[in-house]
C-alpha cells in the first residue's frame, strides 16, 4: 500500500450575495478543498500506479468532510460538485487521473446517492497554477442553472514532486441564473443526466 503524505490542506469558501442584480434571499455558498500530497511516482515512469488510487480514499473522505464543515451546511444541502488535480512538474498527467475514483467516492460517500458523474479537469503545473474546476448538479448533469466553475489555486503548490488534489461543492444555482434549460425541480433522477 502506498502511504499518502500530506504537506498541507487548504479550504476556501465563498458566500455570494449578488453579482450586480437582486440580492439573493439565501446566499450561494461555494467552496474548495485542496490537499497537497507527495507524488510517489515523481521523476520516473512507473507502470503500475493503481495502488495509490485505493490509498487516496481516506484522504478524499477527510477532504469532503472538511469542505462540508467549512461551507457550514448539512451534506443534504450540497447541490453541485466537481473535482480536479494539478500534477507537479516531475509527474505525469496520468498521476492526476488517479484522483477520479477516490475523489468521486469521497463525495458520494458523504452526499448520499448522488447520481451524476462528477465533472473534472486536470493538468500538469507549477506552484500557484490556477485550475478551473467544473461544477454540475449532483443528481442530473443537464441542470443548466448549476453549470459553473470555481477557480482554485494553492500559492506554493504543487512542487515538482507533489500533486494537488481538489474537490469543489456548491449549495445552489449561479446567483442570477436565468438562461432556461432543465431546472433542478424537473430532475427525474434516473440516469444522472436529467
Amino acid at each position, binding site marked *: 500500500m502506498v502511504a499518502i*503524505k*500530506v*504537506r*498541507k*490542506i*487548504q*479550504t*476556501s*469558501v*465563498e*458566500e*455570494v*450575495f*449578488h*453579482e450586480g442584480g437582486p440580492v439573493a434571499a439565501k446566499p450561494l455558498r461555494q467552496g474548495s478543498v485542496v490537499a497537497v500530497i507527495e507524488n510517489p511516482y515523481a521523476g520516473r515512469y512507473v507502470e503500475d500506479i493503481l495502488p495509490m488510487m485505493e490509498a487516496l480514499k481516506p484522504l478524499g473522505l477527510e477532504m469532503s468532510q472538511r469542505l462540508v464543515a*467549512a461551507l457550514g451546511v448539512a451534506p443534504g444541502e450540497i447541490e453541485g460538485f466537481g473535482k480536479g488535480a494539478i500534477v507537479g512538474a516531475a509527474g505525469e498527467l496520468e498521476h492526476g487521473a488517479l484522483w477520479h475514483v477516490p475523489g468521486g467516492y469521497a463525495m458520494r460517500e458523504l452526499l448520499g446517492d448522488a447520481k451524476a458523474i462528477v465533472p473534472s479537469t486536470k493538468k500538469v503545473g507549477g506552484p500557484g497554477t*490556477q485550475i478551473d474546476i467544473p461544477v454540475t448538479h449532483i443528481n442530473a448533469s443537464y441542470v443548466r442553472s448549476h453549470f459553473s466553475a470555481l*477557480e482554485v*489555486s*494553492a*500559492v506554493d503548490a504543487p512542487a515538482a514532486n507533489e500533486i494537488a488534489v481538489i474537490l469543489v461543492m456548491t449549495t445552489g444555482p449561479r446567483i442570477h441564473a436565468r438562461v432556461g434549460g432543465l431546472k433542478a425541480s424537473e430532475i427525474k433522477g434516473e440516469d444522472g443526466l436529467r
Partner: protein
Amino acid sequence: MTAKIRKLVVQVEETRSEMGKEVNPPVRKAAAIAVIENPFAGKYAEDLTTLMDIGEELGDLLGRRAVAALGIKPNEAESYGKAAIVGDAGELEHAAAILHPKLGKPLRVAVEKGAALVPSAKKRAGIGAPIDVPLGHKDAAFVRSHFDAMEVRVSDAPRSNEILVAVVVTDSGRPLPRVGGLQVSEIEGKDGLR
C-alpha cells in the same frame, strides 16, 4: 451595515509538513475577505468617513470570521495582518480609509488584545489580482518566528467599482522557524514591539 457586500470568502491553510519534516501541531492561517462596492468609485470625494465606518464594520466581521474558521478561541490567535485592493475606478486613499482609522479596534477585540501594529498592504489593481497580506505577532511586532505573509486572491474581484478587503489571522508562526530573534516566550507585551 453600511458596506454593500457582494461576496465573502474565507480561506484556511493548514501546513502539516515542510521539507518532509512533520510540523506538529500544524501551522494554520485563515484569510477572511469581503468584496464590497466602492461608494466613491469614479469621483473625487474629500470626506472619506463612509469608508472609515466600513473599515470598522469589516474589522469586526472579518476578524470574527477568520477566528471562527480556525476553530480557536480569540486569545489563541497569534498573528494578524490586513490588506485592501481598490478596483481601478477608485483611489489608493480609499484603501487607506478602510484600513487605518477604525479597522484595528474591532479586529483586536476579535483576537483578544493585540498590542502590536496590524501590518498592512494596499494597492490599486484589476480583477483577480493577488495581494500578499503581511503578518506579525499580535502582541509584539519583533517576534521573528511570526514574520510572514499570506497571499490572497479572489478570481472575480475587485471589479472597477469594488474594493477587496482582507484580514488574516493565524494560530501560529512559520512552519519550523529557526532564525532566532525574539521568541514568543520572551514577549513582554507592553509596547506592542517586544
